[in-house]
C-alpha cells in the first residue's frame, strides 16, 4: 500500500540557484507499485536537474511516533501500530496521551499547544502536527 502522499515536488538545477517548484493541489499517490514514471520537461535548462521530493508526512516521522507510542503503552509485538492506528484502540488513556505528547516534544524538540495536542487521535495526525511544527521552527 502506498502510504506516502506527496504534495510538493521541488526541482533544483545544480548550477543556478533558482528553484522551480511544482505544487500539486491534491495529494497524489506517486509511488504506485513502482510503475509510475515521472517526467518533466524543462524548457530553458538543458543541464540535468536533481529531483527532490518532499512528502506531506515522512515515513521516518511515522516510525518515530510509533516507537514512542509503543514504548509509552508498553505494547507487545503482536500489537501492530500503523499510521491510521488510533491511540484509544491501543488502550491509551488521557494520562498516556499526555505522556506521549511529552515524549514527542522531547524527541522532535517542539512544543505542542494543548488544544492541538488533544486533537491528535492517530499516529498519522501526530506525525502531521509534528512536521508542521518542525517546519515552522526551521523556517
Amino acid at each position: 500500500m502506498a502510504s506516502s502522499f506527496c504534495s510538493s515536488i521541488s526541482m533544483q538545477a545544480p548550477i543556478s540557484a533558482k528553484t522551480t517548484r511544482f505544487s500539486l493541489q491534491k495529494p497524489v499517490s506517486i509511488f504506485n507499485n513502482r510503475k509510475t514514471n515521472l517526467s518533466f520537461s524543462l524548457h530553458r535548462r538543458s543541464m540535468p536537474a536533481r529531483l527532490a521530493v518532499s512528502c506531506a508526512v515522512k515515513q521516518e516521522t511515522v516510525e518515530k511516533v510509533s516507537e514512542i507510542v509503543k514504548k509509552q503503552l508498553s505494547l507487545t509485538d503482536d500489537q501492530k501500530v500503523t499510521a491510521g492506528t488510533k491511540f484509544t484502540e491501543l488502550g491509551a488513556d488521557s494520562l498516556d496521551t499526555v505522556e506521549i505528547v511529552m515524549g514527542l516534544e522531547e524527541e522532535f524538540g517542539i512544543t505542542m499547544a494543548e488544544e492541538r495536542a488533544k486533537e491528535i487521535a492517530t499516529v498519522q495526525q501526530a506525525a502531521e502536527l509534528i512536521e508542521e511544527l518542525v517546519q515552522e521552527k526551521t523556517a
Partner: protein
Amino acid sequence: MQRSFSIELPSLVPLQLPSRMETHLWYVVPEEVKSKSLLKQYSQLLSPSENDKVLRMRGDELQKNALLARTLVRTTIARYQTNNVVDPRTLMFKKNMYGKPEVDWQNYKNCNNPPLHFNISHTDSLIACGVTVHVPVGIDVEDKERKIKHDVLALAERFYSTDEVKFLSTIPDPEVQRKEFIKLWTLKEAYVKALGKGFSAAPFNTFTIQSKAGTTGGYSLCKEKTKTCNGEWKFGLLELADSHYAAICIEDDQASGGAVSVDIAS
C-alpha cells in the same frame, strides 16, 4: 436456534435512585471476569456499533475491557429504571455537542424517566461508572501504582497550574509525590469530564484543585488567572479495591457546601 438470541443472564436487580447530592459509583475488575460464555452474553447486550468498536481494540485484553465497560454502563442504567423494566439492550446513547456521552431517552414513551447522568472511566485493571440524578458528573480512576514514565515535576510543570506545581514540588518523597500527582490527575480529569465541554474548554493549567483547609477530603476548584474559587463543583476522592484512586466531580448549583457523599458497590 432461537436459544442463541435469548439472554440467560440473571435478571437485573433494580436500584434506588441516588439522592440529589449523591453519586453512586459502580465498578468492575476485569481480571475477575473469566468466563468466556459470560462475555459472549455481554456482547449480546451491546449495539452493533458498540460491538464494532470493541472489535477495533487491538488485543484480547483491550477488547474484553471495552466490552465490560459498555456492559457496565448499560446494565447499571437499566437497573435504575424502577418504574418500567428496561432491557439494557434497548438503551440508546447520544453525545452532547462536545462529544460527552449521555442517555438518549427518545425510545421511551414514558416521560417519567429520571434525569440520570452518568460517566465512565477505565484503566487496564478497573472500570467504573458513576451515576447521579439531576447534576452532571465526571469520574476518573487510575491505578495507584501506575508508573509515570516522565519526571513527575516536569509533567506537572508542562500541564498543571502554578499552584499545583508548587504543592507537588514541596513533597520530598518521590513515591508520595507520584501518588499526589496521580490523585490530582484524577481530580482534574473528573472536573473536565463533569464539565462535559471537551478538553479545550478547561485546559489543565487554567485551574487548580487543592485540599480545602479545615475539611477532611474536601477539595476546592480555583481559576488560575483570577485565583477565584467558587463552590459550584464538588469533589470526592477515594480508594477503590485497595488499588485505585477514584475521583468524582459533580456540579452543585446550590453550593450547599460539604463534601460529596459516595456509595460504592461492585
